[in-house]
């Protein structure tokens, strides 16, 4: 019996994908987890793995076509293919799968600047494909202006996850119920969605690209939900600047990657995170979720918009390794060649506005992380050292942090740790 393979829902803000290229053709054998197609979403290109072993029967969608997430894209015949055998456990009787996509690829949702694992999302994963909406459900949706995003969040209790009339009524009840009295002074209500503004005679409408819309939504969400606090320290990077000046040309020649200040900063941040593990976390509603891995996101201004590739396990890399990893990710971000893997799993974000000439900026947290650190431009400034005035290379570092998770003294400990490390860098700091 052929299995219909569906494009997985990778998140509530990703509504469609484009089948860029079919990697398997009708008649070809496909192994489970083998890439079936290259799929382009708003941000990343990903290889979409086959959920089953079998023979590809036919494509349901041609190359280049945009399809809504959840739609079937091809059929795979699994009938004569034995189920994969677990080497350690006795295998169950061979059975053709009856359900579509039994083992879906990891669920991802789009974060403010990239994809992140689904388990961090506050809402339950919607079923991949639901039975059609009944007439009365459609009527209620229309009558109460229920948006597709709201509908995604409604848990269907009918057969096959069907959204029943009762589900909608329960949802509407909850929607209209007054919120519980806030324990603290009431937070300002989220702004009501503004009606589409009428265009004046001297104005011009610029339609939103999908990326712009997602950045807008996620920035607004971060700003709305996270009580952000902010602070800045000045870091004397004179020694580091000298050292970098001395080695950068040779490094570039040898490694093929530019040696910017960024890998040094990442190194310092990673070590500071080790020292202050609470900063490497996220808000979990009734708990704080500590992240065991240190995956550093780097904000990059790509042609299509802001994107945040992630250096996974950045604590295992040397400065040279970080320089090369950053070079690689930034390069691919600019060429729009990032994969899902490249943008997922970030636990802390570094924002290098100094590269744009800024000396002071106030970043918005990459939701749902605990903090974001910004490195500003290195400028030579007169400073007072031991009652004498000296010309030093100074870099401002700013942090925005989630005040639910962290208090000022914890954040200061972190920024001081970063500062201490950067100021200690100089001639002789090992690159490898």
């Amino acid at each position: 019996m052929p299995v219909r393979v569906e494009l997985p829902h990778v998140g509530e803000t990703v509504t469609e994908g484009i089948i860029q290229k079919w990697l398997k053709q009708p008649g070809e054998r496909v192994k489970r987890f083998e890439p079936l197609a290259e799929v382009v979403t708003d941000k990343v290109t990903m290889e979409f793995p086959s959920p089953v072993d079998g023979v590809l029967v036919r494509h349901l969608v041609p190359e280049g076509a945009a399809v809504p997430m959840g739609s079937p894209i091809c059929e795979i015949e699994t009938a004569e293919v034995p189920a994969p055998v677990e080497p350690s456990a006795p295998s169950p009787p061979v059975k053709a799968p009856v359900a579509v996509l039994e083992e879906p690829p990891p669920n991802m949702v789009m974060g403010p600047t990239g994809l992140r694992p689904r388990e961090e999302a506050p809402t339950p994963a919607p079923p991949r494909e639901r039975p059609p909406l009944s007439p009365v459900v459609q009527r209620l949706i229309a009558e109460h202006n229920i948006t597709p995003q709201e509908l995604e969040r409604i848990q269907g209790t009918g057969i096959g996850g069907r959204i029943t009339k009762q589900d909608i009524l329960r949802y509407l009840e909850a929607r209209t119920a007054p919120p519980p009295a806030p324990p603290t002074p009431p937070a300002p209500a989220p702004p009501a969605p503004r009606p589409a503004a009428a265009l004046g005679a001297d104005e011009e409408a610029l339609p939103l690209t999908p990326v712009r819309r997602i950045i807008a939504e996620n920035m607004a969400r971060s700003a709305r939900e996270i009580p952000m606090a902010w602070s800045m320290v000045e870091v004397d990077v004179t020694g580091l600047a000298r050292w970098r000046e001395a080695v950068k040309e040779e490094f570039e020649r040898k490694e093929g990657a530019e040696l910017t200040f960024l890998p040094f900063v990442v190194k310092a941040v990673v070590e500071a995170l080790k020292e202050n593990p609470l900063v490497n976390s996220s808000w979990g509603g009734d708990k704080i979720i500590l992240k065991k891995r240190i995956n550093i996101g780097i904000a990059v201004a790509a042609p299509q918009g802001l994107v945040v590739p992630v250096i996974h396990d950045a604590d295992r890399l040397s400065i040279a390794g970080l320089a090369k990893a950053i070079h690689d990710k930034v390069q691919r971000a600019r060429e729009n060649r990032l994969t899902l893997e490249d943008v997922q799993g970030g636990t802390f974000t570094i924002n290098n506005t100094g590269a744009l000439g800024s000396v002071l900026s106030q970043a918005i947290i990459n939701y749902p992380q605990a903090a974001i650190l910004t490195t500003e431009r290195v400028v030579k400034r007169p400073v007072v050292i031991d009652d004498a005035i000296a010309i030093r290379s100074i870099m401002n570092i700013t942090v925005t942090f989630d005040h639910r998770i962290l208090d000022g003294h914890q954040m200061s400990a972190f920024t001081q740790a970063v500062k201490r490390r950067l100021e200690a860098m100089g001639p002789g700091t090992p690159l490898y």
Partner: protein
Amino acid sequence: MAVKTVIEAIRDAMREEMRRDSRVIVLGEDVGRRGGVFLATEGFIDEFGEERVIDTPLAEASIVGLAIGAALNGLRPIAEIQFTDFIWPIVNQLVGEAARHHYGTNGQVSVPIVVRSPYGGMVRGGLYHSQSAEGFFYHCPGLKVVCPSTPYDAKGLLKSAIRDDDPVLFFEHKRTYRTVRGEVPDEDYTIPIGVADVKREGRDLSVFSYGLTLHYCLQAAEALAKEGIQVEVVDLRTVKPLDTETILASVKKTGKALIVHEDNLTGGVGAEVSALLADAGFTYLDAPIKRLCGPDVPAMPFAPTLEQAFMPTTDKIIDAMRHLARY
């Protein structure tokens, strides 16, 4: 108020109407000295005499033909067709004549007859004593078709039928005659033809039925209440004309409809209720309209096992209700 059986309520209704209005007569096979095969007219011949309680030959066409003639001459006859299985000879008289007079004379001449007929199975009646026929007559304009299920409804509706100026086909489920009891007021009352009755309120699904299966539906609803499923049970009472308002109001509330009847599935009352809901109730539906009916076989079989297999029993209704509730 007294607790009565369905047959007692029917007997009371006829007796009271015959006492109230001397134009009311009864005629049929064995309705006189024997008091009717189910004793619906027991004692009538002594109280009202042979002129108003008429034993007829075994000729159904002539029973209804005579009734039509008497009605056209000012009487209000109640004709009894002993078993619905034997109703076919009256079709020409009832459908071809009685149902057309009012229309054909532009409202000048009406035929105020009632044809009473015990119908339905679960009585070990086999092929010739178990049939339901409302589906056939349902199709004919000019007729009213009533199928009560409780003593209270049977009495009130039969009185309305007798007082109605047009022909009314009054189907009495013979299994309910002595198995269903209920309170019946002592004073005179009528129940309007064409008005359904919500016998049990619920919010999860609507079930429409009449006759014996109505009681099975109530039992099933009671059983499902223990599972937290609230079933609304609507007794159609009159299948023609249908109470479209009550039917639609119930489905607007629940979004789901199940129609249960013992008559064959195809072209039965359930088909018409379904069509009504698909048309006027479409945007209120949360599930497909379901029917649980007698199968499309010529008649209810004799063997008890096959009777059970034919009949929409309480267990089958529970399954159907549960499935629809979960849908």
